[in-house]
């Protein structure tokens, strides 16, 4: 039922990752995740320059219902965060793929291979 673009990679913890042409990785949460969370009211963004590890928590998305940790799909350095989410966090509910959360400059781009493709993610997302 949810929208899962085929050109993205997905973590089991419901983040999407997109390898950009400049070698950085753009990260957000899946449509399935935003639907499960419900109305999103706050996003705690990581700090630009922070070092993150693959699978390490680095941001928090809060819906009216609950707080949910966001994990970086790859190790590296945070090089950009989506400041627009500070004023309109609900944008993620409207379009979870256009409204990214942070960008990582990966230290090991092959970590992306550990992630799921769209079909693999849909198979696990439907269980939750």
């Amino acid at each position, binding site marked *: 039922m949810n929208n899962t673009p085929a050109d993205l990679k997905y973590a089991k913890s419901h983040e999407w990752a997109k390898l950009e042409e400049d070698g950085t990785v753009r990260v957000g949460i899946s449509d399935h995740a935003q639907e499960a969370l419900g109305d999103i009211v*706050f996003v*705690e963004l990581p700090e630009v320059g922070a070092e993150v590890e693959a699978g390490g928590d680095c941001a*928090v998305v809060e819906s*009216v219902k609950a707080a949910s940790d966001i994990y970086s799909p790859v190790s590296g350095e945070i090089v950009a965060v989506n400041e627009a989410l500070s004023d309109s966090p609900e944008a993620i509910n409207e379009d979870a793929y256009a409204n990214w959360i942070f960008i990582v400059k990966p230290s090991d781009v092959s970590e992306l291979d550990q992630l799921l493709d769209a079909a693999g993610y849909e198979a696990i997302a439907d269980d939750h």
Partner: protein
Amino acid sequence: MLQETVLNLVHREMGAKMVDFGGWDMPLRYGSQVDEHNAVRDGAGMFDVSHMTIIDLRGENVRDFLKNLLANNVDKLTLKGKALYSCMLNEQGGIIDDLIVYLMGDEKYRLVVNAGTREKDLAWIERQAESYSVEVRERPELAMIAVQGPKAREVAEELLHRGLDARAKKLAPFQAAWAGDWFVARTGYTGEEGYELIMPGAEAVTFWRALAAKGVTPCGLAARDTLRLEAGMNLYGSDMDENFTPLESGLTWTVALEPSDRDFIGRAALIAQNEKGNIAKFVGLVLEDKGVLRNHQKIVVEGGGEGEISSGGFSPTMNRSIALARVPAGTGDRCEVDIRGKLKAAQVVKPSFVRNGKVLVNLD
């Protein structure tokens, strides 16, 4: 196996996301919980509250029984149909449950208690009732629908029959009228006008659909929680339980210590607590920064002392995070809340944020 209300299939048909709520399979939300919340503040919303426990009490000594059982005094109910909010305490003054009691006749009262506390409530009530020879009759065959919002009464009245509509129109707040097994009370858990309607289970689906056809928005437990939080109404199990007395739960107003010769269960413990003093305050919080207050977050107060959030969340009406919290007696008008290791400033206010669509708190 989860218990289901008679409206279960209708909820699913209307697209509800269902959730296990105290052993009941109940709608969490149908679409956006914020839209449902706003429908109640601006128009009319409806909630299936059939999981709540309805208990009818009857007998010659029923009034004396309730004067002993409840911390509030049923002698305040002088008019048939009037309702009273009360806590039911154990001997230590701890809250077994909160409930509404209706006067239905000289020797008849109705209690509506929480779903999650049903078994222990019934066991406690039956045990206390023995020496009063009071008949305790649960009414699981009845359904209950709350219709809430500025337009709720008008819409619900259009669907009432048997002359009940005219009597409903005349009800004062916290008063009920009934005809047969149809029971209409001007009560609620949202801070808005509205009714809580009890009816035969077999008629609930038709009534629910008729309300929907009149544009009443179906609302789930998620919206029910943000609405009651904004209204500053306690939730049993979060804001209070058997570890707390009404005096430290913002419910002193519901305890009738006068007349002093009414010896209700828990009275001695409350008097001892009052004499000892230094009772924790139950307050409202408004988060000044962005973020969301959540249950069990620690509160740090200037001059020492810690408190804890008992219900935290996001207020769609105020577009701010709010909470109910227990804080040290000396807490002033500011505190800090530990949110994931960071201390964030919050304003301490009276625990009533929104009533009849209006924000009551002065935001600074």
